Protein backbone atom coordinates (compact mmCIF):
# COMPACT_ATOMS: atom_id res chain seq x y z
CA UNK A 1 0.00 0.00 0.00
CA UNK A 2 1.45 3.35 -1.03
CA UNK A 3 0.83 6.31 1.22
CA UNK A 4 1.51 9.98 0.62
CA UNK A 5 1.87 12.11 3.75
CA UNK A 6 1.39 15.85 3.42
CA UNK A 7 3.92 17.76 5.45
CA UNK A 8 3.88 21.49 5.96
CA UNK A 9 6.81 23.37 7.37
CA UNK A 10 5.62 25.94 9.90
CA UNK A 11 7.35 28.46 12.17
CA UNK A 12 8.35 26.87 15.50
CA UNK A 13 5.53 27.50 17.95
CA UNK A 14 8.10 27.84 20.71
CA UNK A 15 9.54 30.99 19.16
CA UNK A 16 7.82 34.32 18.53
CA UNK A 17 5.90 34.19 15.25
CA UNK A 18 5.31 37.25 13.07
CA UNK A 19 3.46 38.33 9.95
CA UNK A 20 5.29 40.38 7.35
CA UNK A 21 3.62 43.85 7.40
CA UNK A 22 4.45 44.38 3.70
CA UNK A 23 2.18 41.64 2.28
CA UNK A 24 0.50 40.10 5.36
CA UNK A 25 2.17 36.73 4.79
CA UNK A 26 3.95 34.68 7.42
CA UNK A 27 7.44 36.03 8.12
CA UNK A 28 9.28 32.75 7.68
CA UNK A 29 12.70 34.25 8.21
CA UNK A 30 11.75 35.36 11.73
CA UNK A 31 11.67 31.89 13.30
CA UNK A 32 12.96 28.37 12.78
CA UNK A 33 10.92 26.15 10.50
CA UNK A 34 9.69 22.84 11.93
CA UNK A 35 7.31 20.10 10.77
CA UNK A 36 3.74 21.05 11.59
CA UNK A 37 3.15 19.08 14.78
CA UNK A 38 0.10 17.12 13.60
CA UNK A 39 1.98 16.12 10.45
CA UNK A 40 4.39 14.14 12.64
CA UNK A 41 1.36 12.11 13.76
CA UNK A 42 0.38 11.68 10.11
CA UNK A 43 3.89 10.40 9.30
CA UNK A 44 3.82 8.03 12.28
CA UNK A 45 0.45 6.60 11.22
CA UNK A 46 1.70 6.09 7.67
CA UNK A 47 4.82 4.31 8.95
CA UNK A 48 2.70 2.02 11.13
CA UNK A 49 0.39 1.19 8.21
CA UNK A 50 3.44 0.47 6.07
CA UNK A 51 4.90 -1.79 8.77
CA UNK A 52 1.61 -3.71 8.76
CA UNK A 53 0.68 -3.74 5.08
CA UNK A 54 3.94 -3.05 3.21
CA UNK A 55 4.33 -0.43 0.48
CA UNK A 56 6.02 2.94 0.46
CA UNK A 57 5.61 6.20 2.32
CA UNK A 58 6.16 9.37 0.30
CA UNK A 59 6.38 12.83 1.86
CA UNK A 60 4.81 15.66 -0.13
CA UNK A 61 5.59 19.25 0.75
CA UNK A 62 4.61 22.46 -0.96
CA UNK A 63 6.88 25.16 0.34
CA UNK A 64 10.00 27.29 0.00
CA UNK A 65 13.61 26.14 -0.22
CA UNK A 66 14.16 25.92 3.56
CA UNK A 67 11.37 23.32 3.83
CA UNK A 68 14.09 20.78 2.91
CA UNK A 69 15.01 20.75 6.63
CA UNK A 70 11.57 19.40 7.48
CA UNK A 71 11.63 16.94 4.59
CA UNK A 72 14.95 15.56 5.88
CA UNK A 73 13.46 15.14 9.33
CA UNK A 74 10.41 13.35 7.89
CA UNK A 75 12.68 11.00 5.94
CA UNK A 76 14.77 10.32 9.04
CA UNK A 77 11.62 9.21 10.87
CA UNK A 78 11.47 6.43 8.27
CA UNK A 79 9.61 7.65 5.17
CA UNK A 80 11.00 6.29 1.90
CA UNK A 81 11.11 9.33 -0.38
CA UNK A 82 9.86 12.85 -0.82
CA UNK A 83 8.43 15.23 -3.38
CA UNK A 84 9.07 18.91 -2.80
CA UNK A 85 7.09 21.39 -4.88
CA UNK A 86 9.19 24.52 -4.68
CA UNK A 87 8.50 27.51 -6.86
CA UNK A 88 8.49 31.28 -6.24
CA UNK A 89 5.16 31.45 -8.06
CA UNK A 90 3.56 29.67 -5.08
CA UNK A 91 4.44 32.42 -2.58
CA UNK A 92 1.38 33.75 -0.77
CA UNK A 93 -0.95 30.97 -1.93
CA UNK A 94 -3.94 30.50 0.36
CA UNK A 95 -5.42 27.27 1.66
CA UNK A 96 -7.55 26.53 -1.42
CA UNK A 97 -4.67 27.18 -3.78
CA UNK A 98 -2.39 25.02 -1.66
CA UNK A 99 -4.94 22.22 -1.83
CA UNK A 100 -5.14 22.68 -5.61
CA UNK A 101 -1.35 22.55 -5.91
CA UNK A 102 -1.21 19.39 -3.79
CA UNK A 103 -4.02 17.78 -5.83
CA UNK A 104 -2.21 18.47 -9.09
CA UNK A 105 1.04 17.07 -7.73
CA UNK A 106 -0.71 13.94 -6.46
CA UNK A 107 -1.79 13.43 -10.06
CA UNK A 108 1.83 12.62 -10.86
CA UNK A 109 2.09 10.03 -8.06
CA UNK A 110 0.63 6.60 -7.32
CA UNK A 111 -1.07 6.22 -3.97
CA UNK A 112 -3.77 4.37 -2.06
CA UNK A 113 -4.00 6.77 0.84
CA UNK A 114 -3.23 10.42 1.53
CA UNK A 115 -2.70 11.28 5.18
CA UNK A 116 -2.41 14.82 6.52
CA UNK A 117 -2.71 16.77 9.75
CA UNK A 118 -6.17 18.08 10.53
CA UNK A 119 -4.83 21.59 11.04
CA UNK A 120 -1.58 23.55 10.80
CA UNK A 121 -0.22 25.57 13.73
CA UNK A 122 0.35 28.71 11.66
CA UNK A 123 -2.56 29.45 9.33
CA UNK A 124 -4.86 26.97 11.10
CA UNK A 125 -7.61 26.98 8.50
CA UNK A 126 -8.09 23.22 8.73
CA UNK A 127 -9.34 23.39 5.16
CA UNK A 128 -6.65 21.68 3.09
CA UNK A 129 -7.85 18.12 3.70
CA UNK A 130 -11.45 18.82 2.70
CA UNK A 131 -10.50 20.98 -0.27
CA UNK A 132 -8.00 18.40 -1.47
CA UNK A 133 -10.60 15.60 -1.36
CA UNK A 134 -12.95 17.79 -3.41
CA UNK A 135 -10.29 18.49 -6.03
CA UNK A 136 -9.39 14.80 -6.25
CA UNK A 137 -12.96 13.55 -6.09
CA UNK A 138 -11.98 11.19 -3.26
CA UNK A 139 -13.70 10.33 0.02
CA UNK A 140 -12.48 12.38 2.99
CA UNK A 141 -12.18 10.85 6.44
CA UNK A 142 -11.39 13.68 8.80
CA UNK A 143 -10.22 13.99 12.44
CA UNK A 144 -9.13 10.36 12.67
CA UNK A 145 -7.90 9.06 16.03
CA UNK A 146 -7.67 5.46 14.72
CA UNK A 147 -7.17 4.04 11.25
CA UNK A 148 -7.69 0.47 10.02
CA UNK A 149 -7.09 -0.61 6.46
CA UNK A 150 -8.66 -3.82 5.23
CA UNK A 151 -8.00 -4.78 1.62
CA UNK A 152 -9.59 -2.05 -0.45
CA UNK A 153 -11.39 -0.20 2.31
CA UNK A 154 -10.37 1.98 5.23
CA UNK A 155 -12.21 2.57 8.47
CA UNK A 156 -11.48 5.35 10.94
CA UNK A 157 -12.69 6.58 14.28
CA UNK A 158 -13.61 10.20 13.77
CA UNK A 159 -13.12 12.18 16.94
CA UNK A 160 -15.99 14.37 18.10
CA UNK A 161 -16.51 16.49 21.23
CA UNK A 162 -18.39 13.72 23.02
CA UNK A 163 -16.93 10.53 21.56
CA UNK A 164 -16.25 9.23 18.08
CA UNK A 165 -17.95 8.21 14.89
CA UNK A 166 -16.93 5.23 12.80
CA UNK A 167 -16.48 6.25 9.17
CA UNK A 168 -15.62 3.94 6.33
CA UNK A 169 -14.60 4.49 2.72
CA UNK A 170 -13.02 2.72 -0.21
CA UNK A 171 -9.43 3.38 -1.21
CA UNK A 172 -7.97 5.66 -2.36
CA UNK A 173 -9.02 8.16 0.30
CA UNK A 174 -7.85 11.26 2.15
CA UNK A 175 -7.47 11.00 5.93
CA UNK A 176 -6.73 13.83 8.35
CA UNK A 177 -5.48 12.91 11.81
CA UNK A 178 -5.67 14.32 15.34
CA UNK A 179 -2.97 13.95 17.98
CA UNK A 180 -4.82 11.23 19.92
CA UNK A 181 -4.04 8.82 17.09
CA UNK A 182 -0.52 7.81 18.16
CA UNK A 183 2.81 8.87 19.66
CA UNK A 184 5.25 9.90 16.89
CA UNK A 185 8.63 8.18 17.00
CA UNK A 186 11.98 9.92 17.17
CA UNK A 187 14.47 9.44 14.36
CA UNK A 188 17.65 7.53 15.19
CA UNK A 189 21.19 8.25 14.07
CA UNK A 190 21.07 5.30 11.69
CA UNK A 191 17.89 6.62 10.08
CA UNK A 192 19.39 10.11 9.90
CA UNK A 193 22.32 8.62 7.97
CA UNK A 194 19.99 6.58 5.77
CA UNK A 195 17.84 9.62 5.00
CA UNK A 196 20.82 11.17 3.25
CA UNK A 197 20.48 8.59 0.49
CA UNK A 198 16.71 8.73 0.06
CA UNK A 199 15.39 10.38 -3.10
CA UNK A 200 13.89 13.87 -2.87
CA UNK A 201 12.26 15.00 -6.11
CA UNK A 202 12.06 18.74 -6.47
CA UNK A 203 9.33 19.99 -8.81
CA UNK A 204 8.57 23.39 -10.27
CA UNK A 205 4.89 24.19 -10.68
CA UNK A 206 5.13 23.34 -14.36
CA UNK A 207 6.60 19.92 -13.56
CA UNK A 208 3.86 19.29 -11.00
CA UNK A 209 1.17 20.28 -13.50
CA UNK A 210 0.16 23.37 -11.55
CA UNK A 211 -1.32 26.28 -13.49
CA UNK A 212 0.55 29.51 -12.64
CA UNK A 213 -2.67 31.52 -12.92
CA UNK A 214 -4.25 29.56 -10.12
CA UNK A 215 -1.63 30.05 -7.38
CA UNK A 216 0.31 32.82 -5.68
CA UNK A 217 -0.63 35.93 -3.70
CA UNK A 218 -2.04 37.75 -6.72
CA UNK A 219 -4.53 34.97 -7.43
CA UNK A 220 -5.45 34.12 -3.86
CA UNK A 221 -9.13 33.52 -3.19
CA UNK A 222 -8.78 34.94 0.29
CA UNK A 223 -7.14 38.17 1.27
CA UNK A 224 -5.73 39.34 4.58
CA UNK A 225 -7.38 42.75 5.05
CA UNK A 226 -5.84 43.67 8.36
CA UNK A 227 -4.04 42.11 11.28
CA UNK A 228 -2.94 43.09 14.75
CA UNK A 229 -0.79 41.39 17.35
CA UNK A 230 -2.70 39.70 20.16
CA UNK A 231 -3.11 42.17 23.03
CA UNK A 232 -0.73 41.50 25.92
CA UNK A 233 -2.29 39.61 28.77
CA UNK A 234 -3.82 41.89 31.37
CA UNK A 235 -3.53 41.31 35.07
CA UNK A 236 -6.25 39.02 36.38
CA UNK A 237 -8.96 40.00 38.80
CA UNK A 238 -8.05 39.29 42.40
CA UNK A 239 -10.89 38.24 44.62
CA UNK A 240 -10.21 38.95 48.28
CA UNK A 241 -12.03 36.55 50.55
CA UNK A 242 -13.60 38.44 53.41
CA UNK A 243 -16.16 35.81 54.12
CA UNK A 244 -17.97 36.35 50.81
CA UNK A 245 -15.27 34.92 48.44
CA UNK A 246 -17.56 32.23 47.08
CA UNK A 247 -20.23 34.74 46.14
CA UNK A 248 -17.69 37.03 44.46
CA UNK A 249 -16.26 34.17 42.40
CA UNK A 250 -19.76 33.08 41.35
CA UNK A 251 -20.57 36.67 40.36
CA UNK A 252 -17.34 36.89 38.36
CA UNK A 253 -18.04 33.64 36.52
CA UNK A 254 -21.61 34.79 35.84
CA UNK A 255 -20.36 38.10 34.45
CA UNK A 256 -18.18 36.14 31.99
CA UNK A 257 -21.17 33.88 31.17
CA UNK A 258 -19.37 30.76 32.44
CA UNK A 259 -22.28 29.95 34.78
Amino acid at each position, binding site marked *: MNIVVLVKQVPDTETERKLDPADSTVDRAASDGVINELDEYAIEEALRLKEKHGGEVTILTVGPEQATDSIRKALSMGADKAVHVCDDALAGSDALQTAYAIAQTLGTLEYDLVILGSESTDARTGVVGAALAEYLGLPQLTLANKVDVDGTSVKIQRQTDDGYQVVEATLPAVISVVEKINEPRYPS*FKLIMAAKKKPVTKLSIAEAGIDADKVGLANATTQVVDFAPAPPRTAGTVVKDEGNGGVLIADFLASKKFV
Partner: protein
Amino acid sequence: MSVTRLMPSQETADLVELVREVASRELAPHVAEAEETERFPREAFRTLGKLGILGLPYPEEYGGGGQPYEVYLQVLEEIGAVWASVGVGVSVHVLSCYALAVYGTEAQRQRWLPDLLSGDLLGAYCLSEPHAGSDPAAMTTRARRDGDHYILDGVKAWITHGGQADFYTVMARTSDDRSHGISCFLVPADTPGLSADRPERKMGLTGSHTTMLRFDGVRIPAHQRIGAEGQGLSIALSALDSGRLGIAAVATGLAQAALDTAVDYARQREAFGKPIIEHQGLAFLLADMAAAVETARAATLRAARLKDCGLPYSTEASIAKLVATDNAMRVTTDAVQVLSGYGYTRDFPVERYMREAKVMQIFEGTNQIQRMIIGRHLARGATGSTVVVAS
Protein backbone atom coordinates in the same frame (compact mmCIF):
# COMPACT_ATOMS: atom_id res chain seq x y z
CA MET B 1 21.59 25.11 25.70
CA SER B 2 23.08 28.38 24.49
CA VAL B 3 25.96 26.95 22.48
CA THR B 4 26.80 27.24 18.81
CA ARG B 5 28.34 24.02 17.60
CA LEU B 6 30.42 23.38 14.52
CA MET B 7 29.61 19.88 13.33
CA PRO B 8 31.43 18.08 10.50
CA SER B 9 28.29 17.20 8.50
CA GLN B 10 24.57 17.86 8.13
CA GLU B 11 23.78 14.43 9.59
CA THR B 12 25.76 15.03 12.77
CA ALA B 13 24.20 18.49 13.10
CA ASP B 14 20.78 16.81 12.81
CA LEU B 15 21.87 14.34 15.47
CA VAL B 16 22.75 17.13 17.92
CA GLU B 17 19.34 18.76 17.26
CA LEU B 18 17.65 15.43 17.86
CA VAL B 19 19.55 14.86 21.12
CA ARG B 20 18.59 18.35 22.31
CA GLU B 21 14.95 17.65 21.54
CA VAL B 22 14.94 14.24 23.20
CA ALA B 23 16.90 15.47 26.23
CA SER B 24 14.55 18.36 26.86
CA ARG B 25 11.36 16.35 26.24
CA GLU B 26 12.17 12.90 27.58
CA LEU B 27 14.98 13.39 30.14
CA ALA B 28 14.59 16.87 31.67
CA PRO B 29 11.12 16.27 33.20
CA HIS B 30 12.47 13.37 35.32
CA VAL B 31 15.83 14.70 36.58
CA ALA B 32 14.80 16.41 39.81
CA GLU B 33 12.57 13.53 40.96
CA ALA B 34 15.06 10.75 40.14
CA GLU B 35 17.98 12.57 41.78
CA GLU B 36 15.93 13.41 44.86
CA THR B 37 14.72 9.82 45.32
CA GLU B 38 18.03 8.21 44.22
CA ARG B 39 16.21 6.33 41.46
CA PHE B 40 18.32 4.87 38.65
CA PRO B 41 16.68 5.96 35.37
CA ARG B 42 17.14 2.78 33.32
CA GLU B 43 14.52 3.99 30.78
CA ALA B 44 16.61 7.07 29.94
CA PHE B 45 19.34 4.75 28.64
CA ARG B 46 16.80 2.81 26.56
CA THR B 47 15.62 6.06 25.01
CA LEU B 48 19.19 7.11 24.17
CA GLY B 49 19.99 3.56 23.06
CA LYS B 50 17.19 3.69 20.50
CA LEU B 51 18.65 6.88 19.06
CA GLY B 52 21.98 5.09 18.62
CA ILE B 53 23.89 7.05 21.27
CA LEU B 54 25.24 4.09 23.27
CA GLY B 55 27.38 2.86 20.37
CA LEU B 56 28.08 6.18 18.69
CA PRO B 57 31.93 6.14 18.62
CA TYR B 58 32.28 2.47 17.64
CA PRO B 59 32.47 0.99 14.12
CA GLU B 60 29.31 0.63 12.07
CA GLU B 61 30.16 -2.97 11.14
CA TYR B 62 29.46 -3.97 14.77
CA GLY B 63 26.32 -1.85 15.03
CA GLY B 64 27.97 1.36 16.21
CA GLY B 65 27.53 4.84 14.79
CA GLY B 66 31.04 5.10 13.36
CA GLN B 67 31.46 8.65 14.61
CA PRO B 68 34.64 10.43 15.70
CA TYR B 69 35.06 11.54 19.32
CA GLU B 70 34.60 15.12 18.19
CA VAL B 71 30.96 14.24 17.43
CA TYR B 72 30.37 11.77 20.26
CA LEU B 73 31.68 14.17 22.91
CA GLN B 74 29.51 17.05 21.71
CA VAL B 75 26.47 14.79 21.92
CA LEU B 76 27.58 13.70 25.39
CA GLU B 77 27.98 17.32 26.47
CA GLU B 78 24.38 17.98 25.43
CA ILE B 79 23.22 15.07 27.59
CA GLY B 80 25.42 16.11 30.52
CA ALA B 81 23.91 19.59 30.41
CA VAL B 82 20.47 18.13 31.02
CA TRP B 83 21.28 15.19 33.28
CA ALA B 84 24.77 14.61 34.65
CA SER B 85 23.99 11.13 36.01
CA VAL B 86 22.84 9.98 32.59
CA GLY B 87 25.79 11.66 30.84
CA VAL B 88 28.19 9.87 33.18
CA GLY B 89 26.27 6.64 32.60
CA VAL B 90 26.64 6.90 28.83
CA SER B 91 30.34 7.63 29.23
CA VAL B 92 30.81 4.63 31.53
CA HIS B 93 28.91 2.39 29.13
CA VAL B 94 31.13 3.50 26.23
CA LEU B 95 34.17 2.97 28.49
CA SER B 96 32.99 -0.54 29.30
CA CYS B 97 32.81 -1.44 25.58
CA TYR B 98 36.30 -0.12 24.89
CA ALA B 99 38.32 -3.18 25.88
CA LEU B 100 36.32 -5.51 23.63
CA ALA B 101 36.15 -3.06 20.72
CA VAL B 102 39.86 -2.25 20.73
CA TYR B 103 41.56 -5.33 22.22
CA GLY B 104 39.07 -8.12 21.48
CA THR B 105 39.78 -10.67 18.76
CA GLU B 106 37.65 -10.53 15.63
CA ALA B 107 35.69 -13.56 16.86
CA GLN B 108 35.07 -11.94 20.26
CA ARG B 109 33.97 -8.69 18.67
CA GLN B 110 31.57 -10.38 16.29
CA ARG B 111 30.11 -12.44 19.06
CA TRP B 112 29.47 -9.74 21.69
CA LEU B 113 30.00 -6.22 20.38
CA PRO B 114 26.73 -5.90 18.40
CA ASP B 115 24.78 -6.70 21.59
CA LEU B 116 26.83 -4.31 23.69
CA LEU B 117 26.33 -1.51 21.16
CA SER B 118 22.67 -2.27 20.39
CA GLY B 119 21.36 0.23 22.90
CA ASP B 120 19.43 -2.45 24.81
CA LEU B 121 22.28 -3.39 27.12
CA LEU B 122 24.19 -1.35 29.67
CA GLY B 123 27.80 -1.95 30.70
CA ALA B 124 30.00 -1.27 33.72
CA TYR B 125 33.76 -0.94 34.15
CA CYS B 126 35.39 -2.54 37.18
CA LEU B 127 38.89 -1.45 38.09
CA SER B 128 38.79 0.15 41.56
CA GLU B 129 38.83 -1.79 44.82
CA PRO B 130 38.31 -0.70 48.42
CA HIS B 131 42.09 -0.43 48.92
CA ALA B 132 43.11 0.30 45.33
CA GLY B 133 41.74 3.51 43.80
CA SER B 134 44.43 5.82 42.50
CA ASP B 135 46.82 2.88 42.52
CA PRO B 136 44.92 0.16 40.65
CA ALA B 137 47.98 -2.08 40.48
CA ALA B 138 47.40 -2.68 44.20
CA MET B 139 44.27 -4.69 43.34
CA THR B 140 43.78 -8.10 44.89
CA THR B 141 40.77 -9.53 43.02
CA ARG B 142 42.02 -12.82 41.56
CA ALA B 143 41.28 -14.74 38.39
CA ARG B 144 42.50 -18.31 38.80
CA ARG B 145 42.81 -20.49 35.70
CA ASP B 146 40.89 -23.74 35.90
CA GLY B 147 41.06 -25.68 32.63
CA ASP B 148 39.01 -23.80 30.04
CA HIS B 149 37.76 -21.39 32.66
CA TYR B 150 38.83 -18.67 35.04
CA ILE B 151 37.43 -18.40 38.53
CA LEU B 152 37.17 -14.86 39.89
CA ASP B 153 37.24 -14.04 43.61
CA GLY B 154 37.41 -10.65 45.28
CA VAL B 155 35.66 -7.30 45.73
CA LYS B 156 35.45 -4.35 43.37
CA ALA B 157 34.45 -0.94 44.70
CA TRP B 158 32.71 2.18 43.41
CA ILE B 159 31.20 0.43 40.41
CA THR B 160 28.97 2.75 38.39
CA HIS B 161 25.88 0.75 37.26
CA GLY B 162 26.71 -1.93 39.85
CA GLY B 163 23.65 -4.17 40.13
CA GLN B 164 22.10 -2.46 37.07
CA ALA B 165 24.50 -3.36 34.29
CA ASP B 166 24.00 -6.25 31.87
CA PHE B 167 27.73 -6.89 31.56
CA TYR B 168 30.89 -5.98 33.46
CA THR B 169 34.37 -5.37 32.08
CA VAL B 170 36.52 -6.58 34.95
CA MET B 171 40.22 -6.26 35.72
CA ALA B 172 41.55 -9.07 37.91
CA ARG B 173 44.90 -10.44 38.96
CA THR B 174 46.18 -13.54 37.11
CA SER B 175 49.70 -13.38 38.62
CA ASP B 176 51.58 -11.54 41.34
CA ASP B 177 53.48 -9.29 38.94
CA ARG B 178 52.29 -5.85 40.14
CA SER B 179 51.43 -4.25 36.81
CA HIS B 180 51.85 -7.13 34.34
CA GLY B 181 49.85 -9.60 36.41
CA ILE B 182 46.40 -8.15 35.66
CA SER B 183 44.02 -9.39 32.97
CA CYS B 184 40.74 -8.15 31.52
CA PHE B 185 37.48 -10.16 31.43
CA LEU B 186 33.99 -9.76 30.07
CA VAL B 187 31.52 -10.92 32.72
CA PRO B 188 27.77 -11.09 31.96
CA ALA B 189 25.65 -9.86 34.88
CA ASP B 190 23.84 -13.18 35.28
CA THR B 191 27.01 -15.18 35.94
CA PRO B 192 26.56 -17.15 39.19
CA GLY B 193 28.60 -15.87 42.14
CA LEU B 194 28.40 -12.21 41.10
CA SER B 195 26.50 -9.85 43.41
CA ALA B 196 26.20 -6.14 44.06
CA ASP B 197 25.87 -4.46 47.45
CA ARG B 198 23.27 -1.76 47.97
CA PRO B 199 24.17 1.57 46.37
CA GLU B 200 26.55 3.91 48.22
CA ARG B 201 24.84 6.90 49.85
CA LYS B 202 26.50 9.66 47.89
CA MET B 203 26.67 13.44 48.13
CA GLY B 204 25.53 13.85 44.52
CA LEU B 205 25.01 12.04 41.24
CA THR B 206 22.40 10.16 43.22
CA GLY B 207 20.49 8.94 40.16
CA SER B 208 23.58 6.97 39.21
CA HIS B 209 24.04 3.88 41.37
CA THR B 210 27.55 3.15 42.64
CA THR B 211 28.08 -0.17 44.40
CA MET B 212 30.57 -2.70 45.65
CA LEU B 213 30.64 -5.75 43.42
CA ARG B 214 31.42 -9.13 44.95
CA PHE B 215 32.98 -12.04 43.05
CA ASP B 216 32.50 -15.29 44.86
CA GLY B 217 33.84 -18.15 42.76
CA VAL B 218 32.61 -16.52 39.54
CA ARG B 219 33.38 -19.02 36.79
CA ILE B 220 33.76 -17.70 33.26
CA PRO B 221 34.98 -19.37 30.04
CA ALA B 222 38.57 -18.51 29.12
CA HIS B 223 37.42 -17.08 25.77
CA GLN B 224 35.85 -14.21 27.73
CA ARG B 225 39.33 -12.94 28.59
CA ILE B 226 40.07 -9.85 26.48
CA GLY B 227 43.67 -9.33 25.37
CA ALA B 228 46.57 -11.39 26.59
CA GLU B 229 47.09 -12.55 30.17
CA GLY B 230 48.86 -9.71 31.95
CA GLN B 231 47.69 -7.04 29.49
CA GLY B 232 44.75 -5.98 31.67
CA LEU B 233 46.21 -2.91 33.32
CA SER B 234 47.40 -1.37 30.10
CA ILE B 235 43.96 -2.06 28.54
CA ALA B 236 42.31 -0.46 31.58
CA LEU B 237 44.50 2.64 31.42
CA SER B 238 44.09 3.02 27.67
CA ALA B 239 40.31 2.82 28.15
CA LEU B 240 40.56 5.53 30.81
CA ASP B 241 42.27 7.91 28.38
CA SER B 242 39.12 7.92 26.27
CA GLY B 243 36.84 7.69 29.31
CA ARG B 244 38.37 10.88 30.68
CA LEU B 245 37.32 12.70 27.56
CA GLY B 246 33.76 11.53 28.25
CA ILE B 247 33.91 12.89 31.79
CA ALA B 248 35.39 16.16 30.50
CA ALA B 249 32.46 16.50 28.08
CA VAL B 250 29.86 15.78 30.77
CA ALA B 251 31.55 18.27 33.12
CA THR B 252 31.51 20.89 30.37
CA GLY B 253 27.79 20.33 29.82
CA LEU B 254 27.13 20.52 33.55
CA ALA B 255 29.05 23.81 33.79
CA GLN B 256 27.16 25.17 30.79
CA ALA B 257 23.85 24.33 32.47
CA ALA B 258 24.99 26.14 35.62
CA LEU B 259 26.08 29.15 33.59
CA ASP B 260 22.79 29.26 31.65
CA THR B 261 20.79 29.11 34.88
CA ALA B 262 22.92 31.82 36.47
CA VAL B 263 22.70 34.17 33.49
CA ASP B 264 18.92 33.75 33.18
CA TYR B 265 18.54 34.52 36.84
CA ALA B 266 20.93 37.47 36.82
CA ARG B 267 19.05 39.13 33.98
CA GLN B 268 15.78 38.99 35.91
CA ARG B 269 16.71 39.42 39.55
CA GLU B 270 16.92 43.04 40.59
CA ALA B 271 18.92 44.66 43.37
CA PHE B 272 19.50 48.36 43.94
CA GLY B 273 16.99 49.12 41.19
CA LYS B 274 18.50 47.15 38.31
CA PRO B 275 19.10 43.59 37.16
CA ILE B 276 22.01 42.15 39.12
CA ILE B 277 23.85 41.33 35.87
CA GLU B 278 24.21 45.07 35.37
CA HIS B 279 26.31 45.37 38.50
CA GLN B 280 29.81 45.02 37.16
CA GLY B 281 31.02 43.01 40.14
CA LEU B 282 28.53 40.27 39.33
CA ALA B 283 28.87 40.52 35.54
CA PHE B 284 32.61 39.84 35.93
CA LEU B 285 31.85 36.72 37.93
CA LEU B 286 29.55 35.55 35.12
CA ALA B 287 32.16 36.48 32.50
CA ASP B 288 34.75 34.31 34.26
CA MET B 289 32.22 31.47 34.37
CA ALA B 290 31.59 31.77 30.63
CA ALA B 291 35.33 31.82 29.93
CA ALA B 292 35.81 28.71 32.08
CA VAL B 293 33.10 26.80 30.20
CA GLU B 294 34.52 27.70 26.79
CA THR B 295 38.02 26.78 27.93
CA ALA B 296 36.80 23.38 29.06
CA ARG B 297 35.04 22.79 25.75
CA ALA B 298 38.07 23.84 23.74
CA ALA B 299 40.45 21.62 25.71
CA THR B 300 38.12 18.64 25.38
CA LEU B 301 37.56 18.98 21.65
CA ARG B 302 41.25 19.54 21.03
CA ALA B 303 42.13 16.24 22.68
CA ALA B 304 39.29 14.59 20.76
CA ARG B 305 40.65 15.80 17.43
CA LEU B 306 44.09 14.37 18.23
CA LYS B 307 42.48 11.04 19.08
CA ASP B 308 40.34 11.11 15.94
CA CYS B 309 43.46 11.58 13.82
CA GLY B 310 45.13 8.62 15.51
CA LEU B 311 47.73 10.78 17.27
CA PRO B 312 48.80 10.34 20.93
CA TYR B 313 46.27 12.18 23.11
CA SER B 314 46.73 10.78 26.59
CA THR B 315 48.30 13.94 28.06
CA GLU B 316 45.74 16.16 26.35
CA ALA B 317 42.96 13.92 27.69
CA SER B 318 44.31 14.40 31.21
CA ILE B 319 44.54 18.15 30.66
CA ALA B 320 40.95 18.20 29.36
CA LYS B 321 39.68 16.16 32.33
CA LEU B 322 41.58 18.37 34.78
CA VAL B 323 40.49 21.68 33.26
CA ALA B 324 36.89 20.69 32.55
CA THR B 325 36.18 19.23 35.98
CA ASP B 326 38.03 21.89 38.00
CA ASN B 327 36.22 24.53 35.94
CA ALA B 328 32.88 22.78 36.46
CA MET B 329 33.49 22.82 40.22
CA ARG B 330 34.20 26.55 40.16
CA VAL B 331 31.39 27.45 37.76
CA THR B 332 28.76 25.48 39.67
CA THR B 333 29.95 26.94 42.99
CA ASP B 334 29.74 30.44 41.52
CA ALA B 335 26.28 29.69 40.11
CA VAL B 336 25.12 29.10 43.68
CA GLN B 337 26.66 32.47 44.54
CA VAL B 338 24.74 34.19 41.73
CA LEU B 339 21.41 32.74 42.88
CA SER B 340 22.54 33.23 46.50
CA GLY B 341 19.78 32.41 49.03
CA TYR B 342 17.66 30.78 46.32
CA GLY B 343 20.70 28.99 44.96
CA TYR B 344 21.32 27.40 48.33
CA THR B 345 17.86 25.81 48.35
CA ARG B 346 16.90 22.55 46.70
CA ASP B 347 14.14 24.36 44.79
CA PHE B 348 16.76 25.48 42.25
CA PRO B 349 19.09 23.07 40.47
CA VAL B 350 22.41 24.84 41.08
CA GLU B 351 23.18 23.31 44.49
CA ARG B 352 22.72 19.90 42.86
CA TYR B 353 25.02 20.89 40.00
CA MET B 354 27.64 21.79 42.60
CA ARG B 355 27.33 18.41 44.30
CA GLU B 356 27.50 16.68 40.93
CA ALA B 357 30.60 18.59 39.84
CA LYS B 358 32.54 17.46 42.91
CA VAL B 359 32.70 13.79 41.97
CA MET B 360 34.03 14.63 38.53
CA GLN B 361 37.25 15.80 40.16
CA ILE B 362 37.48 12.38 41.78
CA PHE B 363 36.59 9.54 39.40
CA GLU B 364 38.40 8.25 36.32
CA GLY B 365 41.59 9.35 38.05
CA THR B 366 41.53 12.12 40.67
CA ASN B 367 42.71 15.51 39.50
CA GLN B 368 45.92 14.94 41.47
CA ILE B 369 46.48 11.85 39.33
CA GLN B 370 45.80 13.87 36.16
CA ARG B 371 48.46 16.36 37.24
CA MET B 372 50.78 13.45 37.95
CA ILE B 373 50.25 12.10 34.41
CA ILE B 374 50.82 15.52 32.84
CA GLY B 375 53.89 16.11 35.05
CA ARG B 376 55.42 12.75 34.12
CA HIS B 377 54.90 13.50 30.47
CA LEU B 378 56.69 16.85 30.87
CA ALA B 379 59.49 15.25 32.87
CA ARG B 380 60.09 12.78 30.04
CA GLY B 381 60.67 15.76 27.78
CA ALA B 382 58.13 14.12 25.53
CA THR B 383 56.35 17.20 24.25
CA GLY B 384 56.32 16.71 20.50
CA SER B 385 56.19 19.53 18.00
CA THR B 386 54.63 17.69 15.10
CA VAL B 387 52.61 19.48 12.46
CA VAL B 388 50.20 17.15 10.70
CA VAL B 389 47.27 17.52 8.37
CA ALA B 390 44.00 16.50 10.03
CA SER B 391 42.30 13.71 8.10
